[in-house]
């Protein structure tokens, strides 16, 4: 009888340890900051001039990807610094501006009006934006020569912040 009681006690113990369900849990990660070290995804899109381009075509270079749109005030404010950065770092860093969801004409007209000379890609399907976990615009992604994301940054950057952001990628051989 005593043995049976011990067995009962041991078996009842687990029922006190249950944990309730958590059906609403969704463990999805958030933001571009979590992308560091991940392979940089690439999608074939077109530049504003109609020529095909993609991130993969720039493999072997340090690339600063800027996701933006013409309706986005911080993107518009950031654009002069981005243009200046592209000019100052020509040959060291490739700057790709990737317009999210707008037509080529709209993106081209905006780029012309701001004197943008770096390549502007038009991603009507917003593939880069969702893949790089953009939680807002602008979003900047630094891709190393090995094709992996070095850093993802949400929000506009100053010229100095752009320099700091690419420094680790430039330091890697």
């Amino acid at each position: 009888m005593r043995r049976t009681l011990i067995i009962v006690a041991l078996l009842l113990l687990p029922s006190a340890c249950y944990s309730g369900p958590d059906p609403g849990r969704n463990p999805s990660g958030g933001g571009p900051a979590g992308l560091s070290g991940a392979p940089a995804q690439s999608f074939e899109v077109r530049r504003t001039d109609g020529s095909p381009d993609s991130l993969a075509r720039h493999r072997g270079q340090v690339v600063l990807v800027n996701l933006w749109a013409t309706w986005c005030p911080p993107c518009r404010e950031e654009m002069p610094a981005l243009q200046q950065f592209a000019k100052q770092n020509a040959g060291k860093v490739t700057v790709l501006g990737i317009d999210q969801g707008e037509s080529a004409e709209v993106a081209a007209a905006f780029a012309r009006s701001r004197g943008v000379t770096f390549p502007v890609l038009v991603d009507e399907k917003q593939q880069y934006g969702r893949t790089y976990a953009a939680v807002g615009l602008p979003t900047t992604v630094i891709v190393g020569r090995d094709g992996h994301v070095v850093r993802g940054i949400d929000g506009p950057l100053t010229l100095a912040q752009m320099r700091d952001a690419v420094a680790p990628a430039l330091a890697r051989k």
Partner: protein
Amino acid sequence: MSARVAALAVAVLAIALVLAQDLQPRTGLYHTWQYALALTIALVVVLAYANGARRGTDGPVGKRLAWAMAGAALVAGAGLGSGLLGPDTATVIGTPGTVNPIPALGAAAFFAPADAAAIERGSGAVTLRRRQAGDVALGGTARRVLGESLVYLEPRPAAYVEAFDERGAHLTVTQPTNSSFLSPVLLFRERQRIGALSVPLDTFAAPARKRVVRALYFTPDGLAQFRHAAGPLDRARPALVVTVADDAGRQLGITLVPSGGEAIVAGIRIRATLGSYPALAIAAAPPTWALVGGIGLFGLGVVWAGLALRAARAAALNESAASAS
């Protein structure tokens, strides 16, 4: 009722309870204390019977039946363990083309990219990438047991939306209330009650035009019950009922966008393709080896005990026939 019959009934019930985890994995029942207590009581009953039977309290039939009880105990123990230690029931709704960490599985779920055609076909897939283990590709109705977890896909309503201005220029679509800010795929995480109907609801914006759009997903059946939809409609296709507001919340219009079609409302043209995209469902599941082994042992034990019972009855009949003659 004899102890043997009662123990057998409890064993069958315990096995059925655990098998239900495989057949109806989405129920949260398996993580409740009531479920744990039921299996614990079943374990006590079958082990108590097996213990007595092993010592000969139920004769040669009981000794053989003790093996069946051991099998039932293995199944009940596995069910109890997976209920207590297995992952909570969860549904991971991932945006196409994104990666979601799944700590419960020690894996990352890669939700395959999906364009409008893939949404319409409902052909989305999910790949689980595990550390130091191979990838697990899930598609269609495939189910896989990984450790103490059962993983499978659940199709959910989805819509691929595009927006254009009056001149036909493509507009950025954003989902400000969603972690996938720039996805044109609506996954309808919420629902809205309209009369007796519960309709999938999602929201997107066209910030270039300062428009916020609430989209309700109607199946053809649901559409037939919705008065607003009265009119010339393709009743074979699902549709979105969209209400458009400006960024100050002022309502500007309402219209219906059939799947694969377009509609103009409040200065924007909306194109929508409706279908489905899978969510990743995770549920606790007992290990397959324990289920197969336990049920096998139970079955063999019952058959073996049945043979002993038949032999005993035949012997008893012969004995009574002999004594009658």
